[in-house]
């Protein structure tokens, strides 16, 4: 950390290294890591997958408290929320790397086994994205220095059931977390704000009035159940839950911008110099989107991950061209119920050339049809791409479809 000797790291976030006293436990852990690593290597070389989650799974089987043991000697930073986990984690890793070694979890391996897998490598910091429902157990196991809470909105309701349910679990988690754990939270989201009311230490971040208006699922106060009235992005419940007070207030902006700001504040808290002052310098947040460019059969495609009402709405607002492919699947991680597609407005696609595909393409084709957007419905992505000659196209793809396209 010599490059930033002009400033002391945030003292309460740097934990003393815990020396293992139990030699046998260390030996068991070391053996478990060795076996888990070779299992991952073997699986990769046999072509049985990316080798990302298998080592973690093997490690946890052989040594169930591996996460506790491997967390004890480093600064743990966790990132969770419905949308923006992966890009925010990536940004945070980039920033934290300027002050020390970092391990991180690969995208899509944000369950407990992914966390265990990431921690097998030595480092000063671990920056990990964690699934919303798994966050409480990961917080308990890792005793993190900092937890960045981005947002909560409807997603995979067959699994999450209700947004309130996830918020309540987070609230309990904040209450029972070690008092030294610092929660950095976007309080414009009432669910996140409710969660941190139980926290001993929290940094409240707000993006001012009209930051996207009211939360789409925020009509009821998650704390007391009263009706929550919103005035230009601001709410104030009789019970006291409100985003009118914050430790940091920034201008409103896109989801990518907000997540960049939150990552920078978190980075500052763990001792990254200039991270907050850099916020003003950055103007382009396209790198914060879950997007990538790729050529399919001569057609230049810009792929964007869209997985729930909030991320679809954000992605649709970013469509600039006249050629669009929409891909909808409904596998487990996509959410097996597609009813939510009716909560998104696709009106800005009217007049564009729209092709719909995916395992649940018919659901989406009919939904946009009712909104006056006509499309061509085809069975496969290759058929869809073939309809665009040699031009370029914007592709909005559900979770499994997005990764299917990125990885092929």
């Amino acid at each position, binding site marked *: 950390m010599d490059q930033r000797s002009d400033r002391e790291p945030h003292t309460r976030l740097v934990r003393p290294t815990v020396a293992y006293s139990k030699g046998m436990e260390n030996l068991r852990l070391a053996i478990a890591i060795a076996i888990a690593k070779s299992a991952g290597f073997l699986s990769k070389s046999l072509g049985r997958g990316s080798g990302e989650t298998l080592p973690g799974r093997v490690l946890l089987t052989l040594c169930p408290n591996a996460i506790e043991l491997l967390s004890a000697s480093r600064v743990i930073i966790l990132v969770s929320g419905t949308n923006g986990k992966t890009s925010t984690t990536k940004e945070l890793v980039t920033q934290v790397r300027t002050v020390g070694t970092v391990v991180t979890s690969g995208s899509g391996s944000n369950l407990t086994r992914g966390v265990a897998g990431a921690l097998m490598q030595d480092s000063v910091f671990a920056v990990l994205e964690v699934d919303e429902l798994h966050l409480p157990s990961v917080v308990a196991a890792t005793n993190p220095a900092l937890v960045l809470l981005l947002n909560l909105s409807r997603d995979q309701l067959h699994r999450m059931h*209700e947004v309130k349910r996830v918020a309540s679990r987070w609230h309990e988690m904040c209450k029972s977390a070690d008092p030294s754990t610092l929660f950095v939270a976007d309080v414009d989201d009432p669910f996140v704000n409710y969660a941190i009311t139980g926290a001993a230490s929290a940094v409240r971040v707000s993006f001012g009035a009209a930051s996207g208006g009211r939360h789409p699922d925020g009509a009821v106060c998650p704390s007391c159940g*009263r009706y929550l009235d919103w005035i230009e992005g601001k709410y104030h419940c009789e019970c006291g839950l409100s985003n009118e007070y914050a430790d940091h207030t920034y201008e409103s902006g896109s989801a990518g911008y907000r997540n960049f700001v939150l990552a920078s504040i978190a980075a500052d808290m763990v001792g990254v110099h200039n991270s907050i002052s850099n916020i003003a310098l950055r103007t382009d947040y396209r790198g914060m989107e879950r997007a990538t460019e790729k050529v399919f059969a001569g057609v230049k495609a810009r792929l964007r991950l869209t997985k729930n009402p909030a991320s679809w709405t954000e992605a649709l607002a970013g469509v600039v061209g006249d050629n669009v492919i929409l891909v909808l699947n409904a596998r487990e991680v996509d959410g097996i119920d597609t009813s939510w597609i009716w909560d998104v407005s696709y009106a800005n696609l009217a007049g564009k050339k729209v092709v719909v595909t995916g395992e649940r393409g018919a659901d989406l084709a009919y939904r946009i049809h*009712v909104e006056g957007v006509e499309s061509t419905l085809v069975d496969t992505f290759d058929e869809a791409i073939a309809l665009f000659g040699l031009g370029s196209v914007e592709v909005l793809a559900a979770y499994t479809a997005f990764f299917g396209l990125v990885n092929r």
Partner: protein
Amino acid sequence: MKIIRIHNELLGTYGDRGNADVLAYRAGLAGISTRVIDVSYRDAIPHDGDIYLLGGAEDAAQILSCNALSGGSLHGAVEKGAVVLAICAGFQILGKSFYANNNEVRGLGLLNVTTVPGTQRYVGDIKIHSDLLGIDLTGFENHGGKTLLGAGAQSFGSVVVGHGNGESGVDGAVSGNIFGTYLHGPVLARNPEFADLLLSRAHGSPVKVDDPLADHYAALRLRLVK
């Protein structure tokens, strides 16, 4: 034709707002002009609506909506013969009582049903057979309540796949022009004949809409939910 979408900010958790959009769209194809009126929690419920729609919700929202409706605003419209379609939490609100946040809550009593906590959460694709329509319907259910029919109450359909009202093998309830069901989807998007039934009831004469994409989608879901 006035379509009243009640408290969507509270009763909109599971995409049921689409039922109003489908009704308006199909009515348009049939040459019937419609207006979808969103009534929020702070607004009074209009008495002159032709179709009233209630959707699924989380517990706290369900209680708020029910309290706002308990003044009797919906009763007046029902007495005038308005059509009501209520899904999931909305269906439970129309009954005599339901449970939310572990407390028993008094419902509007427009349907002779009571809802109690179920033995499990009922989540997944659902298919029911409606004798009224003479066809199978599909949807998606996601609820923790078990609904019991009162004496003489009529179910909406018999369960082919899934759970519906719980373990009793039936889904929903029907009384005159009031329809309650656990089918999300939204149910009228996946079952255009049901949409046309509601339009016919509200219009006072048979409405039959021709929309091949809607039929294709409905047939596809029927084939896949088994």
